[in-house]
């Protein structure tokens, strides 16, 4: 099962097993991970599912498209080099992903 390890801004960790094909955002929201808001439900409209991806996990992720890149300039906590919108990250069978959620999304 794909697994996502969510660390919040205070350092608390939640490990969640997800379904293949679901996004990291969906996995978080359905299980009530508090650091992900995702108002738009994954249609790349709101930039409230911002996560910081652990550096050694970045390579397994798909390239960022222009829309995601531009949306990331509007996040409440400023973007870093390892920022992604978690609605754009899909789980594969062997996904083992470590992400940190920002202090605020809205």
């Amino acid at each position, binding site marked *: 099962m794909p697994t996502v390890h969510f660390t919040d801004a205070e350092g608390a960790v939640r490990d969640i097993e997800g379904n293949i094909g*679901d996004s990291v955002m*969906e996995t978080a*929201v*359905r*299980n*009530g991970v*508090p650091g992900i808001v995702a*108002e*738009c*439900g994954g*249609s*790349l*409209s*709101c*930039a409230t599912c911002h996560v910081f991806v652990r550096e050694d996990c970045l390579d397994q992720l798909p390239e960022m498209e222009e*829309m995601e890149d*531009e*949306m990331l*300039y*509007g996040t409440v906590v400023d973007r870093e080099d390892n920022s992604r919108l978690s609605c754009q990250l899909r789980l594969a069978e062997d996904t083992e992903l470590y992400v940190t959620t920002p202090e605020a999304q*809205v």
Partner: protein
Amino acid sequence: MDATKTSTTAAHSAAADGTVADGAVRTGLLIVGASQSGVQMAVSLRALGFDEHITLLGEEDHRPYQRPALSKEFLQGTVESESLIFRSNEYWDEHNVALVKGERIVRIEREADGSGVAHAASGARFPFKRVALTVGARARKLDLPGAELDGVVYLRNADDALALKAQLDGVREAVVIGGGFIGLEAASSLHKMGKAVTVLEYGPRLIGRAVGEETSEYFLNAHRDRGLDIRLDARMKRMVPAEDGSRVAGVELSDGTVVPAQLVLVGIGVVPNTELAEQLGLDVDNGIVVDRHAVASDGTTVAVGDVANIPNPLPGAPEGERIRLESVNNAIEHAKVAAYSLMGRSEEYAGIPWFWSNQADLKLQIAGLTLGYDSTVVRRDDERGKFSVLYYRDGRIIAADCVNAPLDFMAVKNALAKGQNIPADAAADPAVVLKTIVTDG
């Protein structure tokens, strides 16, 4: 979709502690409407430490789900119904929220202290100490001869979407009545699925209730370029039945021409579900009238989301100005206000209202509210397919419509949230990055 907690167990478990004469202990919060705002209220209350029982009751037979995809990804078949579900069953169980599906509340009895019993059409009774109305709105019905024919459909909830999907195979030509968000999203979806689509809009422009004239014009041309047949100022006479009378075959216009269609999708707005509020004697005026803390005129019922008529939440809006917002963002933010209210805290609406609509490859994002605007600035970059309109009131920015221009959207949304301005003269140059020209105060 599976059963979580049935209405009988929820009603029964509450009654089991019974102390009141009618056998019902009136504890806990009853949220009527398992909608975006109902779900958010339950989630926010638990996050705030609300420790009383919560019943989240909805009239549909589905677990609470997200509606926006119904006219887009779900209709096109690119997402499954399971991914529209808000929260896992485990989440609701762990947070002690009883989900009730398939129960429609028809009457609410109440005592002077605000507690009471809600009666469902099925006869089930749901006692409560306090009640929240997150009952939303329903699709406005088409008032024309033939509107009852098979093939004339609406798109408000999951069952509507499932019914629509089930009859698409036999459809070559579709008519969409109404050129608003739902109409244009669905029209774009149907067109993408290979249908010939005609949009009939009664008004003189598209999306007339939500955007200004420049944005309407932009969408008109963009949709025509992408292959939609759009007719403005359309006057319709009736739905034309097929020869055997079995279902709709077209829409007859007032000049006698018939637009052939094996499917007619009606998206002409919604009507707030105010019946329970009226029965409770609450002030109702284009929705349930609530104060800044989401509390209705009786001082105890909270009403949230599409059904609520709220004070204009935009910072600096004139006192007394009111609005009813139909959006996901409002359902969420307003539910948070109500959750604070139920916890005895007077928090006001936070954040800037925003809206989105995805139509074909056109991604519209709206920040703020255009209410009372007196001038606009248009930023257009056809080479990159970007288009924005900024709205000003007395020289201050109050809103923006942005098409495929998330940087503009984000800049305006953030400026509004911080009480900053974006001077109109500098913004007029589309090459200027808006967030570099914001000014304080």
